[in-house]
């Protein structure tokens, strides 16, 4: 704990330099008296050069979601390579209010960048905007925030939203011969990413006229809730053939249920987005044939590199580029849907043939 405190202190000069560099010209806040009185320093980093000693706050949806823990670790690896450090901070509940104090702590600590997975598309915008006005760069990953231009931010897209939605439908269609009733077991009803994938799932389903989406239920990324809505689905739709669960908590809960109810498992095919570590058992015993995911560790790693690049002077604009360390790729920011983003890459399909190759 003391290590973190000391680290923050050493960071202040670096952050002050950024502030003095004019980023904060319009700041009329009363809460930043400390930052304004910094010695004039040159904040000019040559493009491509990453400053050392950067502090990046990673604010996941909550601190327990295994998927985001991996992403945070990826971010930590990235900042370690770049000579900076990551502070992971969030609540235990998937609510915007639980993330609010972490943003405030980042502001008070004069962090260089915030990497956030938003629990709500817009409730965090006022706080993030305050942070941006103080010169903190904002990067979103996993679940985007929709703040328009206040603040401007970069979204690290795990995979093209459309590709995820359509590929999950394709994956299920292949396994149930493109016919029968299907349902979706999602996370929270307000979860940004799940909702946009579901939108594309519905579009893709038009290509499979014999597949009928009968219901979408929400397990709130909580095993107990997921289980009870799953049981509701199974008893409510006796002819259900397939379930897509675009969330790691949902799919692992459903797989566990099917594993212990072989009669139900015989008629229902499960797929979606899952963690290889949690799904390995069910893939091996045949409960689940295949599922997909991108590598969350790579996602956090890329977000870390993006945050460091922005904090080192890479402009937040279309066409700006940054390097990505061991991903060995130069990413270019693209404008779409009114915001800047980069796409990590296509999702990986996991089945019996490759499940043992992935250790996350």
């Amino acid at each position, binding site marked *: 704990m003391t290590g*973190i405190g000391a680290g923050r202190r050493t960071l202040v000069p670096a952050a002050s330099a950024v502030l003095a560099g004019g980023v904060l010209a319009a700041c009329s806040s009363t809460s930043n008296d400390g930052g304004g009185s910094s010695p004039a320093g040159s904040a000019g980093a040559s493009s491509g050069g990453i400053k050392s000693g950067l502090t990046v706050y990673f604010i996941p949806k909550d601190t327990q979601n295994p998927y985001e823990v991996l992403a945070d670790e990826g971010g930590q690896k990235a900042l370690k390579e770049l000579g900076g450090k990551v502070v992971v901070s969030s*609540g235990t509940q998937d*609510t915007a209010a639980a993330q609010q104090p972490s943003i405030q702590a980042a*502001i008070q600590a004069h962090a260089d960048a915030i990497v956030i997975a938003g629990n709500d598309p*817009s*409730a965090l915008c006022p706080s993030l*905007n305050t942070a941006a006005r103080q010169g903190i760069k904002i990067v979103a990953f996993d679940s985007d925030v929709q703040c328009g231009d206040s603040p401007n931010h970069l979204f690290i897209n795990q995979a093209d939203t459309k590709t995820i939605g359509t590929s999950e439908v394709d994956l299920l269609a292949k396994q149930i011969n493109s016919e029968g009733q299907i349902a979706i077991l999602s996370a929270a009803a*307000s979860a940004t990413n799940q909702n946009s994938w579901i939108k594309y799932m519905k579009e893709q389903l038009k290509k499979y006229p014999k597949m009928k989406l009968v219901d979408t239920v929400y397990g709130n990324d909580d095993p107990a809730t997921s289980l009870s809505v799953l049981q509701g689905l199974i008893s409510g739709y006796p002819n259900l053939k397939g379930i897509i669960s675009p969330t790691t908590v949902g799919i692992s809960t459903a797989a566990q249920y099917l594993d212990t109810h072989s009669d139900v498992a015989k008629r229902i095919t499960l797929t979606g987005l899952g963690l290889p570590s949690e799904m390995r058992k069910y893939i091996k015993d045949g409960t689940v044939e295949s599922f997909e995911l991108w590598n969350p560790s790579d996602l956090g790693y890329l977000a870390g590199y993006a945050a460091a690049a922005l904090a080192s002077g890479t402009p937040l604009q279309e066409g700006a580029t940054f390097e990505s360390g061991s991903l060995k790729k130069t990413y270019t920011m693209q404008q779409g849907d009114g915001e800047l983003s980069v796409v990590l890459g296509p999702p990986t399909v996991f089945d019996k043939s490759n499940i043992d190759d992935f250790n996350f």
Partner: protein
Amino acid sequence: MTSELATRPSGDSAVLSGRADGRQPLWRSLARWETGLVVVLVGVLIWASVKSPTFTDPSTLFYIGVNTGYTAIMALPMTFVVMTGEIDLSVASMLGLAGSTVGYLWHHGWNIWAAFAVALAVGVVGGALNGVLVARFGLPSIAVTIGTLTMFRGLAEVLLGSLTIPSLGDQQFPEWLTNIGVNSIPGSQLSWSMLLFVVLAVIFGVVLHVTPLGRAMVAIGLQPEAAKFAGIRVNRMKFWLFVLSGLISAFAGILVTLQQASVSYNVGTGLELNVVAIVLFGGVSIFGGRGTILGVVLSVAIVGSLQMALVQLNVSADKQNIVTGVLLLISVIVPNGAAALRRARDYLRRRARPRPL
């Protein structure tokens, strides 16, 4: 402490038998709890200032206000409800329902003030539902409000579904109103929600400690039967307290909607436990009849400062929950433990007396 004195006359009943021998006036044991809270608060402030380099930043006060203000406001009517020996676990769901109501109406083009009015009305109706079930039908409030906790949240989900308001194509909420979430009161570091809490706390404190209304609440909490015979309309009082709780929770829902400049159905999920924790840690007895608004205010200050400091020190969220849980346990164990000790002592003394005869 004069306010506690005011509650003394009505507290004259069998429950206070400890006082019969003139040893333990009620107000003194209460004063000790509040004194204890002051010590804890000072301790937390010193500890936080030493450990966290950013805690002494003026903005900390503002952030504590923004983060805890709306929760603290709900703790005031909760104090009244708990004083009468009941509990309202539906407050956070009512906050969500009221916020969702504002969002739903705004989404449909309503004027913001009209939307606020409807949201407050929803609070009154929801509170009245709790009140009728508890006061009229005599059902246990813990069961009733667990039911409405689920129901209000369900209604909020029906209203907004997966939408976050303002959604695409909606107008933003008026900026001068949503600024309460990012700007402090000019010339200070006080947030608007914290100012509202302070004003309301003064009003609630006066009502509880110097009016007949407050004395009636204490009497109901101590001895509902005796209060009834003394001419206090116990059921009517309980009914209106639940209505008040619904109304204030709805108001908190409006506040949080403005502070976050947006609302989705799950806003404030689980907050009822924080509200109850603040009230109990403030020294309000879960069995009713005992407690002060001052204690609740101190409790808010402690919990708010502690949470902020823990986040600043990057203590993980699960450990923060443990701290909250420990606070709650302390607030239940210490007063009851003290009472048990007193009983044990009196018992021993009574036993010791006959022996010489």
